[in-house]
C-alpha cells in the first residue's frame, strides 16, 4: 500500500515538474511549486520521515511560496524568451543524467540494513541515544546533541542568509504608516486572521518545546511563528506589522539566537567538557543533555524566526515601494 501511494505521489510530482518547465507565467510556476512541495512532503510522511515532512510543510509550502511571490512582485511576471538554442545544455544534461543512472547501478539495494550507510553511526545512535541523551525523539537527539556542531553551522547559515538579503534589500523603517497597504477591504480576512494568528503562535511555541517528544523543534517552530506574523503583515499591511514587531528588534533577536547556541557550547568548555558537550552542564549527564538541547533549540527558534521575518520584511518593503512608484 505504502509503495503504491509513493508511486502515485511520485507520478503527480513528475507531472507537476514537467508542467512547471513549460509554463511561461512565473506566477503560475510559483503556485505549482507550492503543489510540488505539498507532494514531496507527503512522500516524506509516507517514508516515516516525520521531522523532514514537518520542515517541508512549513518552509516549502508556506514561506518559500511567500518569498518567491515577493520576488515576483519585484521582477515581473513573465519569463523572458530564450534566444539561444538549448541543444548543448540538453546534451550535457543527458550525458550527466546517464552517468548518474549508471552510477546508481553499483549502489547497494534500497533500504538494505547491510548498507554501509546503515552500518556507520546509525546503529550507535539508535542503540545508545536512549541511555546517553534520553529523548523519545531520536531525530532531535542526533540533530541537537550528536551533530550539534553541524546544526550550529546551519543556524549560522540561516543568520547569514538574513544578513545577505538585508544588505541587498534593507529593512523597512518602522513608521511609514501613511501608506495604504494590506488587504484592508477584506473584512472576513481581517477577522479570521485576528482569530487564527494567536492560535498559530501558540502552536509554534508548542512545536518549539515539544521537539524532544515528537516531530518539531526550533527550525519548524521559528518558521511557523514567522508565518503567523507574515499573515498579519499580508492582511493588515507591512507598516502595521513593523509596529507590532519592529525590524530593529528582529536584528537583535537574530543575532541573539546564534549567540545563545554558541554560548551553550562555550559553557561546556567552561565546565571542563568539549565544545557543545552538554553532559557537564548538570551533575547527571542525561539531565545535562536535556538542558543543553532545550537551550540550543530555543536559540535556533529565535534565530530562524527573526531571520525569516526580516527576509520577508525586506522583500515586502521593496515590493510596496515598487508598487507605489
Amino acid at each position, binding site marked *: *500500500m*505504502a509503495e503504491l*501511494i509513493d508511486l*502515485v505521489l511520485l507520478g*503527480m510530482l513528475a*507531472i*507537476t515538474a514537467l508542467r512547471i518547465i*513549460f*509554463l*511561461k*507565467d512565473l*506566477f*503560475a510556476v510559483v*503556485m*505549482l511549486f*507550492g*503543489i510540488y512541495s*505539498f507532494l514531496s*512532503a*507527503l512522500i516524506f*510522511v*509516507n517514508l*516515516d520521515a*516525520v521531522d523532514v*515532512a*514537518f520542515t517541508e*510543510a*512549513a518552509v516549502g*509550502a*508556506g514561506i518559500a*511560496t*511567500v518569498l518567491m*511571490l*515577493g520576488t*515576483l*512582485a519585484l521582477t*515581473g*511576471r*513573465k519569463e523572458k524568451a530564450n534566444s539561444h538554442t538549448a541543444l548543448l545544455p540538453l546534451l550535457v544534461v543527458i550525458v550527466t543524467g546517464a552517468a548518474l543512472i549508471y552510477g546508481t547501478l553499483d549502489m547497494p539495494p534500497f533500504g538494505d540494513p547491510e548498507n554501509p550507510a546503515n552500518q556507520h553511526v546509525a546503529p550507535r545512535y539508535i542503540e545508545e541515544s536512549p541511555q546517553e541523551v534520553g529523548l523519545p525523539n531520536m531525530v532531535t537527539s542526533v540533530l541537537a546533541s550528536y551533530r550539534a556542531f553541524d546544526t550550529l553551522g546551519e543556524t549560522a547559515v540561516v543568520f547569514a542568509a538574513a544578513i545577505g538579503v538585508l544588505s541587498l534589500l534593507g529593512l523597512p523603517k518602522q513608521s511609514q504608516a501613511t501608506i495604504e497597504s*494590506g*488587504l484592508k477591504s477584506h473584512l472576513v*480576512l481581517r477577522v479570521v*486572521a485576528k482569530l*487564527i494568528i494567536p492560535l*498559530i503562535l501558540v*502552536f509554534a511555541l508548542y*512545536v518549539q518545546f515539544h521537539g524532544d517528544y*515528537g*516531530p*518539531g523543534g526550533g527550525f*519548524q517552530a521559528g518558521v*511557523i511563528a514567522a*508565518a503567523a506574523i*507574515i*499573515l498579519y503583515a*499580508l*492582511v493588515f499591511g507591512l507598516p502595521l506589522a513593523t509596529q507590532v514587531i519592529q525590524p530593529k528588534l528582529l536584528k537583535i533577536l537574530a543575532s541573539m539566537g546564534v549567540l545563545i547556541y554558541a554560548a551553550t557550547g562555550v559553557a561546556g568548555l567552561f565546565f571542563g567538557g568539549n565544545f557543545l558537550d552538554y553532559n557537564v552542564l548538570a551533575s547527571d549527564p542525561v539531565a545535562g543533555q536535556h538542558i543543553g538541547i532545550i537551550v540550543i533549540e530555543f536559540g535556533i527558534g529565535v534565530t530562524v524566526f527573526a531571520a525569516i521575518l526580516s527576509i520577508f520584511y525586506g522583500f515586502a518593503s521593496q*515590493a510596496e515601494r*515598487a*508598487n507605489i512608484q
Partner: protein
Amino acid sequence: MLVLTATSVAILSVMALALARALKADTVYDRILGVNMVGTKTALFIAVMGFLGGRPDFLDIAIVYALINFIGMIAVLRFFEYTATDGEPGDKEQSS
C-alpha cells in the same frame, strides 16, 4: 482498515483531479482554486495516513498544513495585486 484505505485512495484521487485543474486552468483563479484544494486535501490525507500507519504524531503535521495552506493562499491573493498589471487577471491565461 479497508475503509481507511478506500478513504485515502479517494482523497488521493481528489488530489489528482485538483492537480489536473491547477495544471490546466482556464483562468488564474481556477489555478489558485486547484492549488488550494490540493493543500486542504493534503492535510486530510495526512490525518488518514496517520491512522493507517498507527502514528498519531502525524496529526501535528496535518495541523501545520491546515494553517500554512491558508497563509500561502492569502499571500497569493496579496501579491496577485502587485503582479496583475502584466496581464488582465480575467484573461485567459496563455499556456504553452
